[in-house]
């Protein structure tokens, strides 16, 4: 997910506003400040109403953060999972990026405080000799097959947050060129929570205090976004541990990968991701049993023609080469095909 230029825009906007504000303050039009002081509480009240009304909505980007995780400490570029389901896209709108920039700016001090700093993560996964859930085994045939020699250093094995790796069920799904794709089942998976829940109120308070510095047109949306994030965090607090699957790409330069922590999403939608393979034009993903090939359909863009490209599935993993993947372009549809080439499912990725 690209953020650099959107965050830069948000920061420049804030700086521009500050400088314009300084000029107004220094100039003969100081009366406008009085109007601003009156207007801010009104805007705050409106914002709060809008935020409460939106409380029931689940933040799309936040869902995706739970759905996809990245391995750390790898010399390869991290693999990025686009999302477990069409309802959990990782992409956010440019406006949301701006709003997120203001949220991060406001809550930075809170989350950097000793009381609210996210707890240190034990990056060494626990290796278990136990068996993954029957639900996970039932949809990924490669896990039920015979054990394969594993050439992953356990210290670099996913996931990074201290969940359990079912070491006896790690499988080499396939090898493409110099890249080996491993499926790594993992369990006791709790959704990511970025900071201690006791700090939610402080995060909100910090944003309220920063609202006057945020452009009026973005205040309501920014506050709504944080409220939705917190709501999703609270929901995550109540979630039960589950099994999940990680697709690990091992190259001569190192290893990296992504995980999906929902067996239901895996069965329903599979995964698709890019990167981590040492080349930027490979799209990879995990699909359930019965899917023998996938067709990725890309829509036409200003610089690219529409494209339909098919790749086989080996060991529940597909690897498809598409030059446009290097430019962050993903298919809008993934067709799952059975052994006879018949389409058994069309997974729509409307955000791509």
């Amino acid at each position, binding site marked *: 997910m*690209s*953020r650099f230029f959107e*965050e830069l*825009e948000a920061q*420049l906007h804030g*700086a521009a*506003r500050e400088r314009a504000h300084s000029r107004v303050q220094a100039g003969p039009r100081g009366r406008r400040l009085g109007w601003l002081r009156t207007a801010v509480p009104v805007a705050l009240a409106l914002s709060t109403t809008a935020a409460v009304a939106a409380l029931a909505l689940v933040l799309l980007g936040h869902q995706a953060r739970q759905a996809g995780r990245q391995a750390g400490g790898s010399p390869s570029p991290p693999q990025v999972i686009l999302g477990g389901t069409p309802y959990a896209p990782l992409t956010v709108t440019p406006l949301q990026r701006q709003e997120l920039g203001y949220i991060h700016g406001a809550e930075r001090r809170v989350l950097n405080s000793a009381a609210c700093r996210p707890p240190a993560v034990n990056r060494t996964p626990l290796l278990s000799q136990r068996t993954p859930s029957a639900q996970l085994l039932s949809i990924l045939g490669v896990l039920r097959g015979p054990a394969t020699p594993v050439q992953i250093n356990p210290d670099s094995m996913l996931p990074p947050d201290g969940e359990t790796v079912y070491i006896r069920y790690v499988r080499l799904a396939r090898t493409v060129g110099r890249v080996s794709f491993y499926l790594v089942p993992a369990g006791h998976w709790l959704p990511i929570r970025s900071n201690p829940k006791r700090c939610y109120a402080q995060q909100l308070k910090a944003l309220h205090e920063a609202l006057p510095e945020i452009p009026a047109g973005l205040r309501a949306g920014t506050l709504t976004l944080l409220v939705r994030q917190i709501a999703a965090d609270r929901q995550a607090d109540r979630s039960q541990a589950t099994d999940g699957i990680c697709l690990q790409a091992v190259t001569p330069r190192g290893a990296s990968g992504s995980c999906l922590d929902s067996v239901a999403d895996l069965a329903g939608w599979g995964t698709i991701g890019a*990167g981590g393979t040492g080349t*930027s034009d490979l799209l990879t993903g995990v699909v359930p049993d019965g899917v023998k090939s996938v067709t990725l359909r890309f829509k036409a863009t200003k610089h690219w023609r529409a494209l339909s490209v098919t790749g086989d599935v080996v060991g529940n993993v597909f690897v498809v080469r598409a030059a446009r993947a290097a430019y*962050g372009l993903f298919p809008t549809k993934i067709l799952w095909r059975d052994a006879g080439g018949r389409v058994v499912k069309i997974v729509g990725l409307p955000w791509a």
Partner: protein
Amino acid sequence: MTASDEDLLERFVAGDVQAFVAFYRMHLPAVVAFFMRRTRDRELSADLTAEVFAAALVAAPRFRAGEYPARAWLYGIAAHKLADSRRRGRVEDQARRRLALEPLMIDDEDLRRVEELAGQADAGLEAAVDALPAQQRDALLARVVDERAYSEIATQMSCSEMVVRQRVSRGLRALRARFKESV
């Protein structure tokens, strides 16, 4: 160059914050492409781009419409920042510190975005260069892109140095006319 560029800067100086955001959006691809063509380094290009726009924000009150196009003014800042970074061996963040901007992280997706932005800006230019007569195009690319000496190009093209200069000059003039601005 459209007059709206200058308008945007003037409006920003007059207090219209959104005008600077519009200026940023309008010129982001061109500035990224400017650095990509010269450095071939995506991360460096992103870093320099951020510093250029921060510097432009600081310097905007000193911009005088009518003296020169806003884009040329922006490129002037870009060229200065690039030269400065080459001299010092690192990208200065003077303007960003002055504005108290937070350091930005850049990831793989951002790097791809750099290429995309550069591609957006280059697409029109490439088409214009391709449309030039073959001799003009070859001379222009050899001189401007490959930065080869006129004498060397002349030897390769089996013509005089003066002819090469003329071809380069005509090619540049044609491009300027195409974009209705001085590059």
